[in-house]
């Protein structure tokens, strides 16, 4: 679960310019990391990387969804 979290977290940073994909990957990584955290440091690292990925993806949004569609 820790390794899966780490992979999702890294992918969320890589795909941060795709708002939905980056968010799905990052949030998935946060959930897996938090659940598997008691089993070791890899899960904790995965959770931190996923939080960073989610934050970068969120910052890249320039307007709310409804308005972004009308751009």
């Amino acid at each position: 679960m820790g390794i899966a979290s780490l992979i999702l977290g890294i992918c969320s940073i890589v795909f941060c310019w795709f708002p939905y994909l980056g968010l799905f990957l990052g949030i998935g990584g946060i959930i897996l990391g938090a659940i598997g955290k008691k089993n070791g440091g890899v899960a904790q690292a995965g959770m931190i990387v996923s939080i960073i990925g989610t934050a970068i993806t969120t910052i890249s949004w320039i307007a709310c969804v409804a308005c972004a569609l009308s751009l």
Partner: protein
Amino acid sequence: MYPFINIFAAKLPSYGLCMLIGMALVVIMATRKGKKYDVIFDQVIVVAAMGVLFALVCGTLLFYVVTYSLSDIINMISEGNFDFLKSPGIVFYGGLIGGIAGVLLSLKITKLNIQTVENLFVPYVPLGHAIGRVGCALAGCCHGMEYDGPLAVYYPNSVTGLPPDVGYFPVQFLEAFLDVLIAAWLVYYCKKERRKFDVLFMYLFLYAIMRFITELFRGDAVRGVYFGISTSQWISIAIVAVCILRIVFVKFVKKDRLQIDE
């Protein structure tokens, strides 16, 4: 107004930055309050993450269902045409139902009870929403109707391409202010005697009324209007009706006992 903000060498979109601050604020406040209930950060982040994830998934799925028919989607996929995936949107109703489902599911994982989660999150969600609305104002989206009176706002370089010399009603700031008032009331309400889901329904009831009113001042005609009432106002009416039905059910049918856990 200010769609981008320069922080050191980086030029960041102000909407995304406000969204991030709003989400972080909700998690930080829930974590701080959670200490009182022996709830740790990991539990808070799982509840928040599952709520957002399910809201995104259900909101997006419902968007596709209302925008395309099932046969259209099957035809497009069979022809190898995935263009419809490039312009996803979110339906508020789907997001709301999905978010609540996600939070309820997270209770199984985190072993928390619903009343604790309500106390931790619901009063701070409107605060996060208020900061998001300030982000809308900075970006120039979700703007108000054309208006030249006091406090009118101008968008010289909005991301939605609004004319720079036209004044608009500051509806995003009005909504942010009302969201803060709702948050203040909910913080107070959490300390009173109440039943399960009371805080959640109180938030939905107040938000629906607030949204119905602020919708009258909105000027971004992207959404549909049916019988002179916008989609968001119809949703608000439905939410208020559900809240009233719930009050009747709890008071006269189920007769739940009140309890306080402060």
